[in-house]
């Protein structure tokens, strides 16, 4: 039985002309437990919207998403909040760290919404991503690569069942990108988390055994989707 399954998923946004533009039109997508999957797609093809649907950030117009036996699309907003806190880790392209908080506080804050704050584990995670000596640094005091590593640590803070990574190497140079990618995979494997990573970079996707092309699952041609 798939750990994550999306069926007949549709999502559209109002278009500037007044109509609606369909962004996601997906027949079926599934992910096995503990799998690491790379999904390739062009920029602006609807991948981020798809990830947001999976995370319950957006609500689908139609279709269903089942995550670990729970029907995400049927959940109330507060239940989706809880699901995100407990079961989903998210890594953004632009890291999205909270600037007023230190590295350690960023990780602890993610734990606080799950209700289980474990400082030793937060420190261990930061140690694991090579930032043990910078736990009290603010994001602005870190390099871009270091910021992304904090984002990875934060995504794994609650030992989520699913980690969604949206172009996590997009803002990094190739060397740092490779490092961040390896780290993300390693940590997901160590923590027993499934990983779905989306990227437009061929090289990034090639590093995955399990590869999917977004165009193969999404039936909306990217040329129809507005940026």
């Amino acid at each position, binding site marked *: 039985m798939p750990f994550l399954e999306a069926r007949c998923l549709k999502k559209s946004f109002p278009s500037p002309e007044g109509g609606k533009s369909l*962004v996601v039109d997906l027949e079926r997508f599934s992910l096995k437990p503990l799998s690491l999957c790379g999904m390739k797609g062009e920029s602006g093809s609807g991948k981020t919207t798809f990830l947001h649907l999976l*995370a319950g*950030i957006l609500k689908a117009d139609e279709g269903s998403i089942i995550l670990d036996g729970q029907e995400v699309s049927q959940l109330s907003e507060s239940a989706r909040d809880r699901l*995100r*806190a407990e079961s989903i880790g998210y890594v953004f392209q632009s890291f999205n760290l909270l600037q*007023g908080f230190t590295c350690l*506080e960023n990780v602890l*804050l*993610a734990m606080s919404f799950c209700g289980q704050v474990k400082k030793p584990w937060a420190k261990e995670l930061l140690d694991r991503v090579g930032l043990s000596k910078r736990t009290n640094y603010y994001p602005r005091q870190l390099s871009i690569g270091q910021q992304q590593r904090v984002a990875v640590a934060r995504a794994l803070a609650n030992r989520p069942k699913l980690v969604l990574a949206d172009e996590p190497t997009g803002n990094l140079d190739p060397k740092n990108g490779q490092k961040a990618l390896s780290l993300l995979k390693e940590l997901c494997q160590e923590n027993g988390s499934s990983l779905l990573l989306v990227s437009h970079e061929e090289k990034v996707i090639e590093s995955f055994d399990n590869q999917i092309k977004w165009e193969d699952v999404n039936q909306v041609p990217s040329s129809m989707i*507005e940026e």
Partner: protein
Amino acid sequence: MFQSHFMVIALLAWRGLKQHAFSSFVAAFTISMAGGLFLSTWKIKEEAQKAFNNSSGGFDAVLGARGSKLQLILNAMFHLEASPGNLSWEQYELIRDTRGVKEAYPIAVGDNYYGYRLVGTLPELFRNHEWKKGRKYEVQDGRIFSADAKEALVGDFAARKLGLSVGSQFHPYHGLDFDEKKRHQDTYVVVGLLEPTGTPSDRVIWIPIKGIQKMEGHDPAAAQSVSAVLLSLKGAAGFHLDMKYNKQGNQATLVWPVAAELASFFDKLSWFEDILALVAFFVALVGSLIIFATLRTVMNEKKREYAILRCLGASRLVVTCVVLAQSLFLSLAGIIGAFLAYGGIGFTAARLIREKTGVVMDPLSFVTLDQEKEWKSLWPLVQEKGYEALWPLVEPFLPLLVLVFGIFVIGFVSGLIPALQAYRSSLSDNLSPKS
């Protein structure tokens, strides 16, 4: 700190305000000023009135020349204003010997030393009179002047300001205001310094009444007159004397009771209180708008941050509470600031009143001694009369409660729209995936 939602909300709110420290400071400062002004309008007038009432030097009434009662009080008791005229020595003796008059001390004014008044009186005032229940004047250094000598007993405040000590000699100046051209030839010697009393007598240089009457250069006719007579009464003497001097006679004016005349004086100042209250209201309005603008700015700049928090699993309620907590923090800072501002205004006012009148005002005495006693016997009172018995005790604090409650309401109302905005803001819009 991250263990409870409450602490997380407080931390997020605090850090948010810290990131907009200047705007937050301006908002809290404006609210502080409004609160400080509000407290000042209420408390300073009340405290000043209380202080003036307590500074009547233990006298119940004043007899003086026909004229303004207020001028008579200010002149005879507070050593301010000019004397409305003189009474004859016989008039003094007449009232001294009247039934029901416990004490009568004549005073004579008309000279100063560097702006501090010389007041002539009898040495018995310092030996026998209680300026406050159970408190007689005490000499901290030296002795009381002799009735026939050119000697002076100096109030504590005047001595400190003028640098006078026992043995100092000085020449008085004519008139109540200092004019260096009007120096008298008489030389006085300081023979004693009074302990401070916190009353206008601290600002006075006391000399024998004959000294003023017979000062070189004074009108010889004044040698047998007094400026006023300070009176302590017993029984219903006040009514009889009021009838005799104010209603039937036309030679002199009796001020009795002193507190009633002072109350009517303070009532005349209520227009000033109204203006200050109006200013406080407008400052509060501006403060409220600044809190609103600050929280809106914070809200707008933090939309993305709130969206990230939502992505991490924070609920709408948490984000809303963060904005409301920020308004609460600004309100709390405003309340603390209001008390500090009031302290600043109150102490400045107290200092000015002390400098100008010698009256000691305590702007921070929110509980009077009587109220304190009552608070101690609170529970038996409630048991006896029910909770309604608490009202007289709560009433004096009402403006204080209104201030605290008012600032919280201002903060809450100002934070409400940004909080609702935070509640209603769309998570997906602020993370804005349109592709």
